[in-house]
């Protein structure tokens, strides 16, 4: 299997606060990796280092063969192939749903306007929102906005999708619709790295679960390894609180 993401001894600190203390992680093509852990453990920071929304303080991050910790790497080119979905959706407020999805492929000259339009409509059908194409983001519910955000990321035809707590800002009844889209995506063989609090989703969909605390990987393995067989006291403590 091809290696998609390779993280070597990744360190990140904000001023004097050490958030990541040496993370090693390899993600293979088609794998679904869920990162869990208490808040403040560094899981979102780790994810944001994978497309350089945060600059690493030390170590190496190699995505699709590009060393993105190297300043000479054209990060914009690498990012085209890494989709990201945020906790707060971050849809472009001044654009319609359709424009949100079409913007990047057209602006980066990856597709013509017609192609991008066609792709956007297909993606909206896939996430079940084709009737919302002309709406502005504020007219949609949280769950709908997040599904548009996923469609927007997919429009770039990424190899890897990063999810940063995609359901944490949603009302409970909307969590399901977003998870359903993510499940469908996983079943299509997309390489996915998800920071999540949805343990049910992690159990069901993840090939591998990673438990992070205090900026290091404390436990790693199949969902069963982590959720039922772990011997790590921190992991046991955390799982007791959330399960």
């Amino acid at each position, binding site marked *: 299997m091809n290696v998609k993401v390779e993280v070597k001894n990744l360190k990140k600190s904000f001023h004097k606060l050490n958030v990541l203390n040496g993370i090693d992680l390899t993600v293979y093509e088609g794998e679904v990796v869920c990162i869990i852990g208490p808040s403040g453990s560094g899981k979102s920071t780790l994810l944001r280092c994978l*497309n350089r*929304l945060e600059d690493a303080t030390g170590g190496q991050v190699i995505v699709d063969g590009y060393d993105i910790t190297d300043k000479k790497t054209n990060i*914009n*080119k690498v*990012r*085209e192939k*890494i*989709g*990201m979905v*945020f906790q*707060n959706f*971050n*849809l*472009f*407020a*001044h654009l319609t749903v359709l424009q949100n999805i079409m*913007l*990047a492929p057209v*602006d*980066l000259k990856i597709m013509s306007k017609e192609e991008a339009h066609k792709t956007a409509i297909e993606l909206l059908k896939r996430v079940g929102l084709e009737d919302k194409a002309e*709406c*502005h983001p*504020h*007219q949609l519910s949280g769950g709908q906005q997040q599904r548009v*955000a996923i469609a*927007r*990321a997919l429009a*770039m035809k990424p190899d890897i999708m990063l999810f940063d707590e995609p359901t944490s800002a949603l009302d409970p009844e909307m969590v399901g619709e977003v998870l359903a889209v993510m499940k469908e995506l996983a079943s299509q063989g997309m390489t996915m790295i998800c920071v999540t609090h949805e343990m049910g989703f992690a159990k069901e969909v993840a090939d591998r679960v990673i438990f992070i605390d205090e900026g290091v990987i404390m436990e790693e393995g199949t969902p069963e390894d982590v959720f039922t067989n772990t011997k790590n006291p921190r992991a046991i403590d955390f799982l007791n609180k959330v399960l």
Partner: protein
Amino acid sequence: MDFTRTILESTPLLLEGIKITILISVISLIIGMVIGLLMCIMGMSKNILLKAISGVYIWIIRGTPMIVQAFIVYFGMPQVIQLFNPSFRIEAFTAGIITLSLNAGAYLAEIFRGGIMAVPKGQTEAARSLGLSKSRTMLKIILPQAFKVAIPSMVNQFIITVKDTSILSVIGLADIVNKAKVYVGKSYQFFATYILVAVYYLIVISILMLLSKYLEKKINYERKGRS
């Protein structure tokens, strides 16, 4: 006091003056917008020199009265330039444009900065995560949203600039206040003339306000078609 006669007599002069007022306002605001945007972007850059230039410029303009700035540009600057080029002359109109543009530019820079800061960080992150460069993100995502936030303050600055042209009458700009002074000098109709001048300003600024209302409505995507 004969109001009707004053209106009839002064109208040609005042119309000529208001034309100059409007012309100098429009030119200065266009130049001021360019300066403002430039200074705003310089002020937000990581380059310390660019940041310092923008900071000092805004500091000086905001910290000094416009009448002093006008005197420096109209009387002071030519004196220095004449050391090198004795035939140098500056017209009140040119000096007025320089003063007003520099003035509006400083305030607009701050207004633009406020607008840009008001756009949530997540918008930048989303755009960058899709592969857009810094400048494309600024152009396609941040500025359109910042502009919307900034419209009310921008229009406010436009109004201030239109009114501030009257200060330039002291350096001899042939604006409406100057023309009124000329007319009053021979007719002694102070009350009627200056009331008329006030009405002229009111009309021009009311048009500006209506224009801004229209613009705000047009650009307000959050209210448009709310379901």
